[in-house]
């Protein structure tokens, strides 16, 4: 069996009376893009910080790149934290050189690699500007360079796309895929479910300091199928018993079902209603958004899954 690039097992961490992480476990394997999901304050960032040896866990085990974190391993990790920043009163190029040197690159090697990255992310002409003179998006891109310039084996990105416009979001997505194709392991912590669906192979959902969902994205979605239905037709699909939420998507109705309600019950109810004409009725594959909300709100996977 492949050795995980990163493994955390039953992590727990408290700050005074506040328990930030109660029981978080997951494994991340070489070459995969792993999504770490969860609502605000769930314990994602604290878990990442423990994994990267910024915080010491109260309990639990951590293994990164084949063992405990040490100084040599830090050179093989690229971390883009949620609370990100650069030295505002310094110029862009020397800042990136400094940060890459701290990751063990020689001066000559940094200067060889840096121009390509700057050109690719449209920052080359701004390299002599102070960081504070750059737009927020430019600063974000500069931090992506700082994270990847030393070609790390493990890339940890906390909210990768915040502050980026759609064009640059697409560019960063492409870069993340390239990193994966180059055999790098990527851990993404995010709220943006469509990006998780587009990029991640596997996910862990953390809620209130616990891992509440963990596995392959496709498998999880299959497990949650049956908790929603898609209907094409005419009539009033609102206020149907057993339906939590009904919304129209591209002319179709998307109904999220309450716990215990089955699609067959809903179909029976609808056919019994006056003025309802159903052209298509199918069990919907739930989006990760739905799964996220169901899980966080305490809903369970359907029994039949």
């Amino acid at each position: 069996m492949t050795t995980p690039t990163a493994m955390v097992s039953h992590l727990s961490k408290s700050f005074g009376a506040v328990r930030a992480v109660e029981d978080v476990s997951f494994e991340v394997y070489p070459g995969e893009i792993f999504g770490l999901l969860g609502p605000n304050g769930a314990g994602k960032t604290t878990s990442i910080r423990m994994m990267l040896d910024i915080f010491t866990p109260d309990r639990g085990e951590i293994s990164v790149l084949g063992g405990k974190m040490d100084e040599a391993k830090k050179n093989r990790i690229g971390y883009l934290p949620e609370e990100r920043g650069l030295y505002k009163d310094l110029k862009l190029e020397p800042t990136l050189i400094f940060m890459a040197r701290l990751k063990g690159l020689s001066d000559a090697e940094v200067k060889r690699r840096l121009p390509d990255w700057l050109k690719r992310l449209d920052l080359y002409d701004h390299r002599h500007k102070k960081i504070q003179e750059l737009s927020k998006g430019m600063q974000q891109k500069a931090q992506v360079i700082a994270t990847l310039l030393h070609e790390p084996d493990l890339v940890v990105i906390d909210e990768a796309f915040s502050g980026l416009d759609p064009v640059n979001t697409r560019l960063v997505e492409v870069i993340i895929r390239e990193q994966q194709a180059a055999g790098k392991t990527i851990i993404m912590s995010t709220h943006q479910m469509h990006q998780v669906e587009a990029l991640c192979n596997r996910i862990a959902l953390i809620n209130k300091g616990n891992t509440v969902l963990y596995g392959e994205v496709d498998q999880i979605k299959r497990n949650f199928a049956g908790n929603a239905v898609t209907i094409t037709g005419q009539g009033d699909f609102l206020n149907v018993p057993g339906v939590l939420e009904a919304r129209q998507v591209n002319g179709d109705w998307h109904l999220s079902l309450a716990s215990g309600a089955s699609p067959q019950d809903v179909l029976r109810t609808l056919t019994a209603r006056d003025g309802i004409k159903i052209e298509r009725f199918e069990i919907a594959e739930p989006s990760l958004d739905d799964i996220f909300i169901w899980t966080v709100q305490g809903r369970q996977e359907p029994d039949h899954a």
Partner: protein
Amino acid sequence: MRKLWVVAKHEFLKITRKRSFLLGTLAMPLFFVAIMVLVVVVLVVGEDQRPIGYVDQAGVLATVTALPPDEGDGPNPVELQAFTDEAQARAALEAQEIQAYYVLPADYLTSRDVQLFYWEKAPPNSAQRRFNNLLRANLSTSLPVEVAERAQKGVELTARSADGRQEVGGDSIINIFVPFFIGLFFSIVVLSSGSYLMEAVSDEKENRTIEVMATSMTPGQLIGGKAIGLMAVALAQIGILAVTIAISLIVGAQFIEALRAIHIPWSMFLTLALFFLPTYALIAGMMIGVGSMVTETRQGQQIAGAISMLFTLPFFVVVVFFSAPNSPLATILTLFPTTSFLTVTLRWGMTTIPLWEMIAGWVLVTASAVFMVWAASRIFRLGMLRYGQRLDLKSMLRAVRTGTEG
């Protein structure tokens, strides 16, 4: 270790490239040079270069008439001009051809009276010294050469403390003020670099760079690198000033007699160097702690100002050191870790500091520095990730006690 030096170099260049640093660093040496130039200009331009006359009625100035320039004569030794009688000398004085004239009366050898005549301003010391040398040279012609030379040069007095540890040269006032100014300058430099260190830590927090730093190196490498970089900044400032002062004194000594009396207090430099390192580490530890606690650099600067007071306190009681350099207050301040460095410096030129006080003071400041750096690294680890939150005293003490963030 390499990362420590990368951080040190980065910090050094970051500060030394700032315009404010260049202005601050060069201002003091330039001020010193300006003062020195001013003094020299006043002395050289303002000094009367006209000859000094003499009338030798006693016949004692006949043997040696030309005097080789002496080191006390300054850059332009005044010429000594002999007159056969007083009327001739007076006429030259009235014609302003000479600035003054001496008269050695016929009974000089018995009376030892010499008269000096001038209009409004007495000739400068260097000119009077030149005439005295001529007189001594002639009076000692009958003595053996070695004795004559010794008699002409006079004594060189060195006062030494009874235990032999400290000596004071001829001009004790100057040798009190040299340590005083060294202490003043060291204080400014050390405290400004300590303040830089506080800023360097709080900047990491303010710029949100600390997490990336923490995943690139150990807190020790980060803090150590910053401390070394800033110590290099301090040493660069000291070096620039020391070289400027040295050159100014060497050049100035050609013109200003008082500067030649300054003795370089090597034993003081060595002692201060021993105190400098732990004192710097103590300041660094305190500033790192403050920088880690606050949310903004501005908040930290207020606390840094209060800490600076702890280190500069001896300057406020320097009058006590002048009047009673071995008073109980002086002893207490020598032993107290934050004040020992400056107190030792200030007392150095005024007294012989008891050896036990210096050893005890050094041990205390070193122990305090070790504890403070250790505690600061724990506070730093906790405080660095509390964005926008000021670290309360309770959390800080817990971090120091347990070494954890929780």
